[in-house]
């Protein structure tokens, strides 16, 4: 077994522990961020600070720029101006997606994206927080610890049954869960979660809420969601985006009673 646990034999196989300097408590600095598409301003001088270990809810009208914000943080979209820092030392705007991911920023997409031709198991394996280089990948075997981790995750997302099923054959909701599972397997510092409970039943929603709350502390979690009940159940701080900038920030109660927020987002009866 020790031969198979190669990550203990060769140093280059040991996952790099990335240092994120959070000496000021803040793990994510977003300042004056602007993004435009063909002249349309999706983000407009946005300022946002996320503390280390926080669980932050991000709400806002459809098209307010929440997904775009995540795109910028994860390196998918280039911004026009502004800065995005991960801790004190990592300027995210200079990095490519893969590097950002390896810094420990994980992301769940709005539309669930999983590797359809892989089994649920393989999906999780690929997500594991291991060395992502080429040579390690050629020789990598699952270590016992990793197996355990996968089983754990499998348990959490409730897909043990589907373990060997191709991910492409899962239903929409199952894919959502799998993607969350992949996030968990990767054990990132910062989780960006775009609409996790869309298409989930009430109970599942509850479970997700529990899960996210339990994650906070060890991990920093940013959740985008439109399901107010869900938000209410997990929220400590809520940030409301509108037309690319922050409209309001505060506790759920504050936000809920904010006139502007009611006008542009919540509607009267919420």
């Amino acid at each position, binding site marked *: 077994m020790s031969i198979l646990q190669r990550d203990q034999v060769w140093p280059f196989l040991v996952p790099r522990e990335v240092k994120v300097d959070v000496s000021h408590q803040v793990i994510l600095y977003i300042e004056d961020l602007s993004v435009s598409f063909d002249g349309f301003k999706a983000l407009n001088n946005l300022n946002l600070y996320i503390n280390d270990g926080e669980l932050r809810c991000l709400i806002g009208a459809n098209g307010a720029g929440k997904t775009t914000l995540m795109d910028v943080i994860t390196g998918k979209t280039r911004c026009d101006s502004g800065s995005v820092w991960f801790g004190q030392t990592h300027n995210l705007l200079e990095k490519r997606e893969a590097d950002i991911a390896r810094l420990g920023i994980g992301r769940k997409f709005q*539309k669930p994206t999983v590797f359809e031709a892989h089994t649920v198991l393989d999906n999780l394996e690929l997500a594991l927080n291991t060395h992502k280089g080429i040579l390690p990948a050629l020789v990598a075997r699952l270590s016992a610890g990793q197996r355990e981790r996968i089983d754990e995750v499998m348990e959490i997302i409730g897909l043990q049954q589907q373990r060997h099923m191709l991910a492409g054959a899962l239903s*929409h909701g199952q894919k959502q869960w799998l993607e969350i599972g992949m996030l968990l397997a990767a054990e990132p510092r910062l989780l960006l979660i775009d609409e996790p409970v869309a298409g989930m*039943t009430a*109970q599942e929603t509850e479970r997700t809420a529990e899960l996210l709350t339990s994650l906070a502390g060890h991990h920093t979690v940013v959740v985008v969601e439109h399901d107010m009940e869900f938000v209410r159940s997990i929220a400590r701080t809520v940030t409301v985006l509108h037309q690319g900038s922050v409209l309001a920030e505060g506790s759920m109660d504050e936000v809920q009673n904010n006139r502007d927020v009611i006008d542009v*987002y919540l*509607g009267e009866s919420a």
Partner: protein
Amino acid sequence: MIELRQVTQHYGSSQILWGVDLNITQGSCACIMGRNGVGKTTLLKCLMGLLPVSSGEIRINDYPLHNRPAEKRAPAGIGYVPQGREIFPLLTVEENLRIGLPIRKDKRKHIPERIFELFPVLADMLHRRGGDLSGGQQQQLAIGRALVIEPSVLILDEPNEGIQPNIVQQIGDVILRLNEEDGLTVILVEQKLGFARRVGKQFHLMEKGRIVASDHMENLSDELIRQHLAV
């Protein structure tokens, strides 16, 4: 009005629908509910003709649909709002809406104003690519697009997924209005109980590819919910 009899369906060798019987009357608003993966979407796709049924019959006003191709079903008056919106991403909002014009009975050449009344955002976004819109905007576009063909039945597959609360509200209002004022028959797949209760008149609970309970919405008891919707 819409009648499904013993509909079964397979993906390859795995059977998804197991003899679904469903009866939806004119002007009703039927809400289909069930856990993830029980086959709701599959059922709607069969209804729309996007998936072939393995056996069984589907009729609209006694007109058999199950042996017609999808493109013949829309003119028969079925509007479809799929799960995941399925906007034509590279067409502009306007073009997305225009697609359905030719099959309208009145052969209108213009997008009915009504759509923009219901969804004012669309009017602002007329010349942007459908794919660029945010999720919620796309959802509104998808409903608008289905309404362009002036359907007599509107099929909605989780229309509120990812929609901001006030719009959810609004969509609910729209569905109610269409259903009550215009007499549009609505088939709705919905996970959120609150919404389902608000707009639905009947419910049909699905489990493992079968309809296991159907009744008026008022009769949707906690017991039933626990039995069929809880995890």
